[in-house]
């Protein structure tokens, strides 16, 4: 891997180097200039980072193991808590993987709803990342704008799913409820306001001298290194690699909408920030296109092996009662087998490796969280840089404690 920063190696021959010892600095797990519960064990030579040892595990999640103790549909609430700012992306990603294993064809309307929900939450996630980053670099206003925009969208999400954060929305074979009355118009109105706020953040940050100094040419990673570390999502695209699962392996209705994939060129913090700003614009466009295209229809697969029978059937026919009872008490029986399925979550590839033994519960659930490889590459990105560069770099990789802890 290419050498990142030269300033450590540069030593003026004429300048006598002070014989110093390295210093170990603990940062976190709760630090005002970082978000996410993680502890850094940093070895410093003066102000330069010699070694960075990130320690995760403070949230004590263990959700992969927990999934083995519950039925397939009961895993869904656990996925809310992965990247909790974009719960719908996780919900739908997990469901897509289960559906791949069971070879279920999801109704088109449900696929549109999934795309809409996932893109709204992608905007929320990017807003959070961008706003928090600005705040940790000293700009408080962008954070407020971002949170205002995010809350607007969360209100819409609450109307759709019943919860702002822990959505548990979607079911194996579709989604559990249709779009509320008048919701499409409200989302459009909200998106208009979000666009204003987003542009406000954009102009406040993108031309701000302090912000530029902190983000440009810091936390640099090359294309090759990013690929080698397994980077995906905005962090990979900021290096100029054109890989977006929505384009490369389209799922749901991404092949039916027109959008472009913003790319960076430097692989530094600024590019990662700006890719997110641009992606928000693309998501906005995707959502509006979906609203144009979506048509009435079923939202859940009509197969009682996977979907709960409609309530009138449950209350008045023995077939409905049995179907309901079996799915609730024993869980949905997913055919024996294993699969890996992946979707583009806001931070990159959210992959699910699932193994079913044919019973009502998962035999094994593994989540390929996008944050893990990014976390792995963090030391490489800041080695040799000065300590303050760690802050924007950790912000732009946007590690989420909930998903890196398996």
């Amino acid at each position, binding site marked *: 891997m290419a050498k990142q920063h030269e300033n450590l190696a540069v030593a003026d021959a004429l300048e006598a180097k002070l014989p110093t010892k390295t210093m170990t600095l603990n940062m976190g797990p709760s630090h005002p200039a970082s978000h996410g519960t993680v502890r850094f064990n940093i070895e410093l030579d003066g102000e330069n980072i010699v070694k960075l040892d990130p320690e995760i595990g403070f949230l004590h999640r263990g959700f992969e193991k927990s999934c083995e*103790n519950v039925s397939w549909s009961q895993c869904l609430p656990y996925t809310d808590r992965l990247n909790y700012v974009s719960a719908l992306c996780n919900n739908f990603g997990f469901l897509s993987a289960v559906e791949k294993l069971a070879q279920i064809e999801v109704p088109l309307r449900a696929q549109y709803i999934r795309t809409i929900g996932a893109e709204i939450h992608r905007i929320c996630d990017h807003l959070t990342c961008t706003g928090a980053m600005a705040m940790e670099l000293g700009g408080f206003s962008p954070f407020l704008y971002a949170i205002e925009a995010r809350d607007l969208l969360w209100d819409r999400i609450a109307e759709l799913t019943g919860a702002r954060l822990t959505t548990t929305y979607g079911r194996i074979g579709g989604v559990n409820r249709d779009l509320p009355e008048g919701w499409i118009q409200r989302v459009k109105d909200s998106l208009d306001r979000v666009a204003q706020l987003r542009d406000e953040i954009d102009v406040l940050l993108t031309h701000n001298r302090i912000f530029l100094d902190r983000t440009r040419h810091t936390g640099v990673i090359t294309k090759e290194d990013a690929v080698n570390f397994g980077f995906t999502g905005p962090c990979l695209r900021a290096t100029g690699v054109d890989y977006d699962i929505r384009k490369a392996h389209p799922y749901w209705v991404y092949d039916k909408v027109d959008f472009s994939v913003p790319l960076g060129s430097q692989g530094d913090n600024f590019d990662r920030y700006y890719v997110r700003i641009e992606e928000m614009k693309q998501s906005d466009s995707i959502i509006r296109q979906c609203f144009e295209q979506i048509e009435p229809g079923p939202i859940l697969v009509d197969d009682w092996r996977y979907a709960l029978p409609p309530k009138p059937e449950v209350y*008045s026919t023995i077939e409905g009662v049995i179907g309901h009872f079996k799915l609730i008490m024993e869980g949905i029986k997913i055919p024996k087998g294993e699969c890996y399925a992946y979707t583009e979550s806001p931070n990159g590839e959210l992959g699910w490796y699932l193994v079913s*033994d044919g019973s009502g519960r998962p035999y094994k659930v593994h989540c390929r969280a996008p944050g893990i490889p990014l976390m792995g590459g963090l030391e490489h990105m800041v080695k040799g840089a000065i300590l303050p560069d760690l802050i924007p770099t950790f912000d732009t990789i946007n590690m989420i404690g909930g998903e890196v802890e398996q």
Partner: protein
Amino acid sequence: MSDEKKPVQMVNVEVDGKPTSVPAGTNLLEAAKTVGVEIPHYCYHEGLSIAANCRMCLVEVSTAPPGKLVPGCQVPVVEGQKITTDSPRVKEQQRAVEEFLLLHHPVDCAICDQAGECRLQDYFQEYDYRPSRLDSAKWMKNKRKDLGPTIVLDQERCIMCTRCVRFMAEVAKDPVLGVFGRGTREVIDTFPGKVLDNNYSGNIVDLCPVGALLNKDNRFRARAYFLTATPSICTGCSRGCNTFLDHFQGVPYRYRPRENKDVNQHWMCDHGRLSYHQLYDDRVLAASVGGAKAEAGAAAEAAATALQAAGKGAAVVVSPVLSLEDALAVMLLAKEGLKATEIFVSGRGQGDADFFLLREDRNPNRKGVELAAQAFGLEVKPFAELTKGKPKAVLLAGVDVPTEGQAFATWLSGVETVVAMAANGGTVTAAAKIVLPLATHAEGEGTFVNFEGRAQRFMPAYEAKGAMQPAWRWAATMLGHLGLEFRFASAGEAFAELSKRLPAGALGDFDWKKAPRTVVKGVTPLTGGTVDGRPPGWRELIPLRASSAGSDA
């Protein structure tokens, strides 16, 4: 000539492309089982004659005319036959049968005792999973037809598999049930003037694949899907029928027979089936000394001291309701702790044997107690001898007595020191000066030796309540107070230590560790297909406290 050497003719068949070899005469259904293919069925039961009336097991075979399905339960295998159980034709037949069976089935799952272990539910979800197409009112029948003192029939739920009719005629030899009416009006009922009053009537409830036949004993008392089944042994008589003890949150709800071809086949009698009540009714929870509640350790010490004070005048009375491990430990206490030379065997009084499973001896472990006494060179004396003597002290290991309880209690009142290890209360327990609460076979593990000398393990179902301890532990504690070293901390260790003294070969090839080990330590989720055929979603909780379980696993 070669046929004489090979008495069982094997037939090679193929089930869904998988080759297998089964004895001639095997039906298609059993042949499919050998390669792990389950052919759904309602009316077929291994222990009953073939009716082939439910039509659920129809499969395709290469030897039948094209397009004609044959019942898998009735048709024997033929050399070179190809059996197909998953063709569209078969699948459609299964779906159609299931739809037909559910057509007039009441919407009862929410109030049905069978919900959770119902074949209709299982097969609907697996083979039908489609909405109802019935466009008229459901046919109504008698929802609570009282068949006799133990059984209620819900005729609406019945699918007319006639398992109960065949069982009563073939196994119980009491043909009181019959099929009446035809078509939609067809019902199961007793013949005119007959009542279903038979010691084996409980089996038809187990046999019933749906919730039509219900046992009055536990009707509306428990949800089947919350019950946990632990392999156990019936203690109703010396037959030692293999059972499942179904329990929930430390409360036993029923016994069900567990298949054992050598002992009870698929069945058990009602006398044994209802004996689970003793596991719950009037249990002794706390130790007491002189009528006052005492701490377990203090009571054991008081018992040891009192018995030691009596010296050779202490009589040891062992109940054959105790397990082999219990008996061995009590014998050790008698022999080494109290220097006794003889023991008295108490136990429940004799009853009448019947033609099938029920034995005269209503105690599960008489053979085991006798073996244990033999192991320690103690003379076994009948209970009647006890009341003829004048012992200074009596140690009752188990308070079951073959005589009238009150009379024995009166005799006990003349004895200076009475120590009783008692599972249940009653006059005898009340007459004891020191009471040590006893854990039963539901709360611990151990072995019963049945009348034919067959040793069978039972597993702990739930944790002991209060100060209950198994007799081997009480005996070990008392030995400790008598200055003898503590030798074992679990039933397994007690057996390993003490069974060495048993006469060689007394238990045949019995291996304590090869128990029906179907429970796992701690709360463990079970995957599909548990040993007793229960669906997943069960949580097994076995006692972790050493006092009651003591597992070497």
